[in-house]
């Protein structure tokens, strides 16, 4: 059950997307998301869909996995869609009881849903093709200038790396504890909301105990190896931006402009 969580899962591979510098990818996704929010035309969204489809194709990741990452959002999507459909003022198309559907409402609903879907799909593509460690490295490097104003960038990155490192461990641990309590006859499925909340105690207590124990052990291990923060620390793998990465960034820049000005471009061309 917990194994089904795919958000943030990395699929190793050798495609162009996998090989790009994580910084380039991160900035690209930020640009992509920004243009999604600035763009107001269906033309722009069309471009985004095409581009994303192309990315999925060359990444070699099955579109099924992208759909899977969207699954937890179905409820939010429906909610957004329905609320926008009913509550946007404008030209009324249908009306029943106190509800009315407006033309503008349908448009906004479609926009919103598309926007969320594209947003999640794009960020999923980032995490599917970039290992979490590479990603935190990229964040650390991108935030490096903030060190000048005494922001503890390295420490944040280290905490993030550790947190990411322990997500699978804790999921596995939870799975194990759940199995162990089930073996003792614990029942997580039946009963009302209060029963279900009570049933969580035998899982949460051991989980917290073990998380604290692991944190303690890790801290000791780090100190034994004389960890003293980011000062003068070198890396095993230094990130290097190559021509390919700059080309990708340049391409993304142009792409963003295209998306933002899609409507105007189309009106000029037609």
């Amino acid at each position, binding site marked *: 059950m917990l194994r089904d969580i795919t958000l943030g899962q990395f*699929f190793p591979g050798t495609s162009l997307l996998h090989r790009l510098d994580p910084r380039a990818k991160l900035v690209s996704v930020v640009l992509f998301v920004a243009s999604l929010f600035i763009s107001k035309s269906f033309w722009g969204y069309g471009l985004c869909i095409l581009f994303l489809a192309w990315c999925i194709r060359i990444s070699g990741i099955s579109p099924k996995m992208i759909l899977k990452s969207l699954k937890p959002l179905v409820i939010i999507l429906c909610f957004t869609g329905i609320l926008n459909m009913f509550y946007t003022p404008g030209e009324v198309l249908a009306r029943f009881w106190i509800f009315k559907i407006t033309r503008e409402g349908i448009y906004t609903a479609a926009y919103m849903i598309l926007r969320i879907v594209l947003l999640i799909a794009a960020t999923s593509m980032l995490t599917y093709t970039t290992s979490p460690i590479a990603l935190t490295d990229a964040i650390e490097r991108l935030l490096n200038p903030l060190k000048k104003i005494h922001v503890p960038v390295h420490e944040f990155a280290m905490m993030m790396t550790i947190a990411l490192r322990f997500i699978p461990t804790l999921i596995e641990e939870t799975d194990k504890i759940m199995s162990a309590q089930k*073996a*003792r*006859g614990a029942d997580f499925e039946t009963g009302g909301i209060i029963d279900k909340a009570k049933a969580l105690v035998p899982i949460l207590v*051991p989980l917290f105990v073990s998380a604290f124990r692991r944190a303690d052990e890790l801290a000791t291990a780090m100190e034994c190896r004389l960890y003293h923060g980011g000062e003068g620390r070198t890396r095993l793998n230094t990130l290097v931006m190559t021509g390919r990465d700059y080309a990708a960034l340049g391409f993304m820049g142009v792409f963003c402009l295209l998306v933002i000005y899609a409507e105007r471009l189309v009106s000029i061309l037609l």
Partner: protein
Amino acid sequence: MPEILSVQHISHIYSAGTPFERAAIKDISLSLQEGEFVGLIGHTGSGKSTLVQHLNGLLKPTSGRVLVDGQDIHASKEATRAARFKVGLVFQYPEYQLFEETVYKDIAFGPRNMKLDEAEIDRRVRAAAAQVGLSEDLLEVSPFDLSGGQKRRVAIAGVFAMEPRLLVLDEPMAGLDPVGREEIIRCIVNYRETTGATILFVTHSMEDAARIADRLIVLNQGEVLMEGTPGEVFARSEELLQAGLDIPTVTRLFMTLKSRGLPLSDAVYTVEQAMDEILRLKEGR
């Protein structure tokens, strides 16, 4: 002896349909008779832990059936739940599942889930505590204040208190010192003597397996490699070594002696047997 557990051609595939697909166990069949003491051996990744989680229905086989008392445990929800109580499973490092405020309450968790009445729960908790050698005054202590070995015994008592007819233990001695290991073995033997239950215990230590089990099942890469009495299994030591498994030190020593031309038996796996065998040889001369 009636058959208590029958595993019929089960396979389990993890993460089916993703790039991480992996078969943990492949077409395994085995059966346990009432009252048997069986050791399940295999090294890390041989599928031992996956297999034992099928025995009480925690995992559902991708194909094949598991029968407890002749009943398919996945026939219905009730059957699965019944199997949970008939087959008691002690996980690896069971001390990490403790959560209650007192030892007593923690041991009572299983029986309470079985919806027994208070008097019966009390009887079972005290009986289980006695079986694992916990004194009465420890029952009101927080389990988090105990030593590692004591915690392990509390966790095992938590399963004993459910009085399962088939007790499955996954590496119950892992990470303990020799004294702790002895204590755990004593607990298992105690439980078996007082309840007459069937025991299946998983281990990668050939020494432990050789010493206490009546019958051994050896797993390798998700398949049953061999099955038989310790004597039969260790007579095939060459094969065990080839599969990357360990053999008891005594057996290893006897293999070397034999290769030097001494007429010794193949099936030696305890120090006592070794002594008898050496004496026999001396007197024979």
